[in-house]
């Protein structure tokens, strides 16, 4: 599967309620070592109510400059969340359906201080 097919795909819960759109895919380099680096494992999906401008990642990092832009983009993407891959029932280019009892987590990248506006 090509990752670009997942980006911007709608995310629904088990009852079919639309929760948002996939704006990014979180990877962790802890897969089998093949070459110099471990293979990136799909750890989770970042879901946001809107897709545009999320590629700048202000809602996930502690970046606060330029201040006005950072505050605006973080505000624009409030309501974003991370859902672990294990909570995904099925993912395809048509959309992502989450399993019953899925959990939402903070979208902040671990190890980076997340600053709220």
């Amino acid at each position, binding site marked *: 599967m090509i990752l670009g097919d997942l980006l911007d795909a709608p995310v629904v819960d088990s009852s079919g309620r*639309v929760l948002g759109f996939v704006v990014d895919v979180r990877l962790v380099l802890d*897969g089998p070592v093949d*070459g110099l680096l471990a293979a990136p494992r799909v750890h989770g999906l*970042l879901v946001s*109510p*809107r897709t545009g401008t*999320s590629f700048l990642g202000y809602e996930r990092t502690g970046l606060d400059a330029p201040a006005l832009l950072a505050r605006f983009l973080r505000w624009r993407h409030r309501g974003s969340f991370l859902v672990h*891959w294990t909570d995904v029932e*099925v*993912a395809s280019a048509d959309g992502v359906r989450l399993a019953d009892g899925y959990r939402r987590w903070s979208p902040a990248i671990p190890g980076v201080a997340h600053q709220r506006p």
Partner: protein
Amino acid sequence: MSPRLRRSTRPFPPDETLPEPVRPAGLVLDARLHLLDRQTLDVDDVPVATVDDLEIGPPGSSLLAGTDSVFVTALLSGPVLATRIFGGRPPASRLHRIDWRHVTDVGTTVRLGVHGDSLDVLWVERWVRDHVIGRIPGGRHDPG
């Protein structure tokens, strides 16, 4: 306009504070933030291509389930300019693969541990060099 949920249909309060997840053991990368559109450099620091997309899961699969571990298998590069403007994506057959095992470092650029000449992604450049540039008088040696 890019897709978005209208405020009235958003299922959760926007300013909700969510719990921090447990930090995973390996290096954490967000695909769009840290990999896509990055320049790849070969072992001699020569630019090779940009990362236009990633191949995840078994090649050819179109449906993934959360019960299975899914890994990135290759970086993909290809003619994406038109599809970036007009939408869609080029067919998978037009995208060139660079196996993840060739990647040696991920930073501002993605570094590869192989020579660019050995990768399929540069075949157009090699073809133009051999069949067009090489036939121009003086095209087969350094200037000067």
